[in-house]
C-alpha cells in the first residue's frame, strides 16, 4: 500500500491553458503550474528476509509480468591469478550450463517456450541473476531460479562452447580502435597491476576447468552476498514468502566478498599514441579521480556538467562540435568511483589531421574553468538539469527498486540513507565559488595524461591552419605505445 503512495504524492495542478491569450515570442513568458514531487523512500520498500538477504520489493499490477534481479557481490576482481576470466565464465554459465533437474538445452527450450528471460553474469565488482517472466509461470520460474543460484550444473560441453566463444572475442581485441582506447586508458589510469587490468588471456582461459567454476560459485554465490530487487504482478507477502524459500537452507557455506584492492597507480603525464590505421583518431584526456562520497562530490558534478558533461549546454561540446565541427561526440565525465577513485576523462573522435587542434581546444576549456568563474546562467541550467529531471530516476516500479538495490550494494544506503531525499538540496546548495574551488582543487593539470589511438603520422602532422604541436600540450612529450597481442595482452614485440 505504502509503495503506491510514494508515486501518488505527485501533484500536477492542471495544465494552465490560457485559451485566448497570444502565443508569446519567447518561452520565458510562459507560466507553468508547480510540480511537487517527493522522492520515494527506500525504507518503504526494504525488507530483510529470514536468510538475511535484503529485498527491495514493489508490487505493480499494470502488466502480468514479474521482474526480479538477484545482485551478487563479487566479480572478476576475485579471479585467482592465472585464471582470469573465471568470474565471467561462472556468471554466464549459471543460467546457461544446466541445473540438476534439466540439462542446459532442455532448460533453454523450456524457458523460451514460456517466453521467460533468465540471465546471469559477473562483471568486475558484482554479478546478477535476472528473471523476467509472465506471472502465471511464477512457480516454475522460481524453482528454476533457486536451482540456478544454488546448484548450477556447469555442464562440460557448455563450458567448452563458452570458452570458444570467449576466445573468439579475445581475437577481436585490436579490431576496433574503440576497444584499444578503452583498454589502454585503463592501463594508463590505474596501472598494469590493478585488478581490472588483469585481462583474460588465451592461456588463462585455457586453464579454467569445471572445478574452478564450482569452487568460485560455492564460495561467492551465497545469500551473504545477495541483494534482491523485485517488482511486478504479485502480492507482496506471497512474494516475500517465495523469496524466503529461494534462499533457505543454502547448500554451501560461502564467504562474504572481500573489499576491493586499492592497488592502483596513475600513470606518468604525457601524450600516448597507439598507431592504428583508421581515418579518425580517438582521444582520451585524463586527470586523477575522485570517489562518490567525496565531500565536494556535488560541486564536482556541477562543474563537470558545465565543462563537458551536459551535452549541448556544455562548453566542450559547444566548442569542439558546434563551433568547429571537429567531432560528433565531445564530452567529459567525472563520475566518482564507488570503491576507488575513478579518473576524470574528456574525450572525442576527430579526423587525423584535426586531432591535435581539437585536443588543444579541450585543454583551453579545462584551463578556463579553473581560471574563471562559471556564469550564473550556466550554473542555473546545470542545476535545473539535475533537479528538475529528478523524478525520472523513479519512473517505474522496476526502476525504483533497482535504484535502491544498487545503493544497498555500494553501501550508500548504509552511509547516506537519505541520499535521494537530500539530493536536490545538495545540488541546489552548490554556488559559483564552490564550482571554481573544485575546478582548482580537483583538475590537476600537471598530471594530465592524453591517450590517442589512430594514424600516428597523420595525427602528428596536424593541420596547416591550426599549427598545434601535440608534444607541447602537456609535460612528458609524445610516447608511442605498442599494440598488445590480443591473446596474451603483452605488448607486441
Amino acid at each position, binding site marked *: 500500500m505504502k509503495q503506491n503512495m510514494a508515486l501518488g504524492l505527485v501533484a500536477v495542478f492542471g495544465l494552465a491553458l490560457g485559451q485566448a491569450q497570444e502565443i508569446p515570442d519567447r518561452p520565458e513568458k510562459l507560466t507553468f503550474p508547480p510540480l511537487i514531487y517527493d522522492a520515494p523512500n527506500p525504507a518503504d520498500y526494504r525488507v530483510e528476509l529470514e536468510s538475511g538477504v535484503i529485498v527491495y520489493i514493489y508490487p505493480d499490477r499494470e502488466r*502480468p509480468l514479474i521482474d526480479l534481479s538477484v545482485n551478487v557481490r563479487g566479480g572478476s576482481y576475485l579471479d585467482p591469478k592465472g585464471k582470469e576470466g573465471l568470474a565471467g565464465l561462472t556468471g554466464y554459465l549459471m543460467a546457461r550450463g544446466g541445473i540438476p533437474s534439466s540439462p542446459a538445452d532442455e532448460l533453454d527450450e523450456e524457458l523460451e517456450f514460456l*517466453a521467460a528471460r533468465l540471465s546471469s553474469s559477473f562483471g568486475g565488482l558484482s554479478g546478477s541473476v535476472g528473471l523476467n517472466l509472465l506471472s502465471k509461470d511464477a512457480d516454475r520460474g522460481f524453482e528454476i531460479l533457486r536451482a540456478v543460484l544454488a546448484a548450477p550444473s556447469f555442464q562440460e560441453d557448455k563450458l567448452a562452447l563458452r570458452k570458444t566463444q570467449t576466445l573468439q572475442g579475445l581475437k577481436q581485441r585490436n579490431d576496433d580502435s574503440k576497444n584499444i582506447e578503452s583498454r589502454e586508458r585503463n592501463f594508463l589510469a590505474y596501472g598494469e597491476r590493478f585488478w581490472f587490468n588483469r585481462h583474460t588471456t588465451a592461456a588463462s582461459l585455457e586453464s579454467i576447468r569445471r572445478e574452478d567454476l564450482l569452487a568460485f560459485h560455492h564460495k561467492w554465490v551465497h545469500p551473504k552476498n545477495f541483494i534482491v530487487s523485485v517488482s511486478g504482478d504479485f502480492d507482496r507477502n506471497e512474494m516475500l514468502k517465495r523469496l524466503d524459500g529461494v534462499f533457505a537452507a543454502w547448500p554451501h557455506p560461502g564467504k562474504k566478498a572481500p573489499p576491493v584492492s586499492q592497488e592502483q597507480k596513475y600513470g606518468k603525464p604525457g601524450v600516448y599514441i597507439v598507431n592504428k590505421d583508421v581515418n579518425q583518431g580517438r582521444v582520451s584526456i585524463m586527470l586523477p579521480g575522485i570517489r562518490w562520497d567525496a565531500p565536494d562530490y556535488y560541486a564536482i558534478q556541477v562543474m563537470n556538467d558545465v565543462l563537458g558533461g551536459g551535452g549541448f549546454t556544455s562548453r566542450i561540446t559547444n566548442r569542439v562540435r558546434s563551433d568547429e*565541427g571537429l567531432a560528433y561526440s565531445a564530452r567529459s565525465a567525472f563520475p566518482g568511483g564507488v570503491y576507488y577513485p575513478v579518473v576524470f576523462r574528456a574525450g572525442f573522435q576527430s579526423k587525423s589531421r584535426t586531432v591535435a587542434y581539437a585536443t588543444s581546444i579541450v585543454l583551453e576549456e579545462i584551463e578556463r574553468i579553473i581560471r574563471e568563474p562559471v556564469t550564473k546562467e550556466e550554473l542555473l541550467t546545470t542545476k535545473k538539469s539535475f533537479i528538475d529531471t529528478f523524478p525520472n530516476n523513479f519512473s517505474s516500479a522496476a526502476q525504483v527498486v533497482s535504484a535502491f538495490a544498487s545503493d544497498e550494494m555500494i553501501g550508500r544506503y548504509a552511509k547516506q540513507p537519505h541520499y535521494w531525499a537530500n539530493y536536490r538540496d545538495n545540488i541546489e546548495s552548490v554556488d559559483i565559488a564552490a564550482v571554481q574551488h573544485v575546478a582548482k582543487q580537483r583538475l590537476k593539470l600537471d598530471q594530465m595524461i592524453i591517450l590517442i589511438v589512430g594514424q600516428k603520422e597523420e595525427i602528428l602532422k596536424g593541420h596547416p591552419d591550426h599549427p598545434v604541436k601535440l608534444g607541447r600540450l602537456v609535460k612528458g612529450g609524445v610516447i608511442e605505445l605498442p599494440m598488445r597481442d590480443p*591473446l596474451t595482452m603483452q605488448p607486441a614485440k
Partner: protein
Amino acid sequence: MLGLTIALAGLVPGQAQQVPVDERTLSNGMKLLMLERHHSPAIAGGWVARVGSVNERPGITGIAHLFEHMMFKGTPTIGTSDAKRDAEIIEQQETVRDAMRQEEAKMRLALRRGEIEDLAKPENKTERYRELEAKFKELIAAQREVLVKNEFDRVYTTAGASGMNAFTSNDMTGYFITVPANKLELWAWMESERLLRPVFREFYAERDVVFEERRMRTESTPLGKFQESLEAMFWESHPYGWPVIGWPSDIPAITKAQADEFYALHYAPQNITLILVGDFKADEAAKLCERYFERIPRGKRNPPEVVTEEVAQKVEKRMNAEAEANPQVDILWHTPAAGHPDSYALEVLAAVLSGRSGRLHKALVLGDEVATSAFAHQMARKYAGMFNIGGEAKEPKTPGDVEAAIYVEVERLKNEPVSARELQKVKNNFAAMAVRRASSNFHLLVQLIQYEGGGDWKSINTEIPSILEVTAEDIRRVAQKYLTKENRTVATFTRKAGTKVPDDPALAGLSGEQQAVVRRIASQIKSEISLERLQQQLQTMEAQLGQADGKQQGLIKIIMVKVAERIAELSK
C-alpha cells in the same frame, strides 16, 4: 496439444494488450497521437516526419540526416540575440559559399584529371579557396557576436527536460524528448516554433560534424564500410541502396539552399505526426497542440511518392571482404514491405531460426560446430524488406562452411513443415512481446514513432495478432518463395592479412616468424609415428631447456607440449 493450449491460457494475446492511442488530426493535416500513462509526472513527447534517405536522390544523399541535425539550431528568437543581423550574416555567408562552391568545382576537376589525389587534404585547396575560407571565418566570428549558443537545448534543459535527441533512418526522421508533466506547453511552444520558422545557422560546421559521424560509424569501424558496400550491392534500383549518412562526396557538397527546399517539401504538416505519451489529459493536450501547431500552414504540395521499386534480382550476388574481424558470413534476401502478409510469416520464420533453442543455434553451434554464433531476422521497411541470416565461423571452419550449414536449415524449412511445438514457442514469445513493450513512456514513444514512420501506427496493435495467425504452411511457402539462390546476396568476411590471430592459443605472444617455425615443427610432430623417436626428442629438448635464453625457452616449451601430446595420442 492440450498442454500447449494451457501454457498460453493465462495470457490473452492481442486484445488485452492493445495500446490505446487517441488519434486526432489537426486542421492543417498534421496528425496527433496521444497515450495517457500516469506512472510518473513526466511526458515523452516527439514527432515523426515521413521522410528519410529513401526520399533523397544522388548528389544530395545524406540530406535527410543532415537536416535532422539542423533542426536543433533554433528559430529567429531562439539561438540569436539579434535575428535581423543573424539573417544578414547568413545571407553573406551564402554568397561566400557560392564562390567557394565554384572553387570546389575546380578542385573536383583537378581530382578527375589526376592533378590532386584527395579533396579532403588541406594542402589541396586552391589559393582562392583559402582566401574565401578566411572571409567565411570572419563572418562566423561576426555571427558569434549575436549567437546564443545551443539555446534550443538550453531552454529545454533549464526547464528540466531531458534526453533530447533525434534519429534518421531510410524511411523516417524522429525527434523526441522527455519533459516534466507541467511543461507540456513548453514542449508545444518549442516544437511548433522550430517547425514553423527554423533557422539553419551554423550549417557548414554542422556538415563537418556529420562527416565526423560518418568517420566514426562507418569508416573507422571494422565492418562499417563493408556493410555499406553490401547494402549498395543488394539494392540495385531502390533508393535504399545508398547509406542514410550519405556518400562521402555528397555530404560536403550539400548546400543550405537544398536544405531549405527539403524542409519546405518534407516538413509540411501533412507529412508529420505528433506523439505524446505520459502524464497529461488527452483533451487538454489536444487543445494545446491545436493552438500551437495549427499555426503552421499546410504545405502547398505533398511530397512526391517513392515510385522506384527494386528490380527482381536475377542472379546470386557475392562479395568477400578482408576485414579486421573474425571470419563470418552475412546473407540477405529480398522480401516484401512492412504490412504485406508474407512479412508476418517471415517474422515467424526468423524466430524459428533464432534464440538458444532455435534451429540455427542447435544446428550450427551445438550440432555441426561450424559456428560460434548465428542469427536471423526479417527487416520489413516501408517500401521493401530484407531477410538476413548470418554467423561467425568456429575456426578453422570457414565462412563458406557456415554458409553451407545455413542453406541446409533453409532447405529444411522449404521441405518440412515446422512442428506445432516450435510454432507455439515462437508465438508465445510474440504474445509476450506485446506485454513487455509497455515498459516506459519513452519506449512506447519510440515504438509509435517507428510504426507511424514505417507506415501506420496502428500496426503496433495489429502486427502481433497477424503474426499469431501464421501457419506452418505459410512458413514453408515463404521460405520457398523468397529464400532462393537467385534472390540472395552473400558477403563473406575473412580476416585481413597482418591482423591474423593465431588459431592455436599456444602460439599467442610469438612473432609471426616464430609462429611459422612452431607450425612447421608441429606438423612434422603430428606426422611422426615412432613413439621412440618422439621420446628421444623430448629428452633432447629437456636437456636444451637449461641452456636456452628466456625467449628460446618459451619456444622449446611449446614444442615440448606438442611432442607430449603426440606421444599421448600414439599411446592410446
